[in-house]
């Protein structure tokens, strides 16, 4: 299951790492305990709106920017999950029943046309055998 808090945590961590800053640094700037920031980054704790604002401010990024990143990531994961779920959603194949349900008219009208020369030699063989 995709969890929003995990995606938000990942985005916050990536942002912090891009800036080459430590947990101590950012937690002090955001006035959040280091342990709490770590838990938020790891997706173990749900950050409140106030806390999220404080962390974003400490990182010098807008919340919109973080949420855009989260949104893009979420869209990718949901698409992937939908694709993975599709084969499982189909009923298990039951060939016999499937064939029975196919309308007869749908079967292609196959007619073998035998060339005249082949037909002639074939009939001589048949006659000879008889």
């Amino acid at each position, binding site marked *: 299951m995709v969890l929003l808090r995990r995606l938000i945590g990942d985005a916050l961590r990536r942002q912090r*790492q891009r800036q080459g800053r*430590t*947990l*101590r640094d950012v937690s*002090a700037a955001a006035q959040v305990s*280091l342990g709490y920031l*770590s838990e938020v980054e790891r997706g173990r704790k749900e950050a409140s709106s106030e806390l999220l604002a404080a962390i974003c401010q400490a990182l010098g990024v807008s919340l919109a920017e973080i949420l855009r990143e989260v949104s893009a990531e979420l869209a990718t994961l949901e698409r992937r999950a939908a694709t993975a779920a599709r084969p*499982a959603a189909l009923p*298990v194949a039951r060939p016999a029943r499937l064939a029975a349900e196919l309308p007869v008219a749908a079967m292609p009208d196959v007619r073998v046309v035998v060339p005249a020369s082949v037909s002639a030699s074939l009939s001589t063989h048949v006659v000879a055998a008889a």
Partner: protein
Amino acid sequence: MTVDASALPLRERGLRSRAGNAMGRTRAAVLDGAGRAIEKHGSRRATMADIANLAGVAKGTLYNHFRTKDAVYAAALDTGLRSLAEECVAAAAEDLADAFALAAERLSTSAPLRRIASDEPAVLASLAAVGSGGEWDVARESVRATLAAAGRTTAEPAVDVVLRWLVSFVGNNARDIEGQAALLAQSLPPASVASPVVESNDPPTD
């Protein structure tokens, strides 16, 4: 043995059986309840009934998981330690001082440990006396893994210094954990140094 796959019940991928998830949830609730029971009543006065009550599970359910209060405490300590270790190893890969500060802060602010520190000095003493075997081995291994993740020495004296440093934070309202963590992290040599000389870690005098 052959199994007819079509005869098996269809189950969404990635979902465990309900029983498996419920077991894990109950166990987590019980361990959480144990922490809250200690916080509320102290480790000695808390009863199995308190733990079940605060965990929100029936007493019978609790006894299905653990026979005694000590068994609950041991499991809570073990789970807490391993979870903290995992977090510290991840943090240490980036910054060792962060990992130290993280662990020290958790030990210092843990509600059950605070309660023990304020009301049960004898229990605190037994928790803070660095020993060997049991959970001490788990703790030592966790420190070693944390140091290794940061590319620092994992020599026994270094592990011991870190362990003793961490234990000093158990349940106490420490100040400037970050500063002390940074000093300790600085004093630990890289892994390549054969015999590390660990400097004494005096608290900053500002």
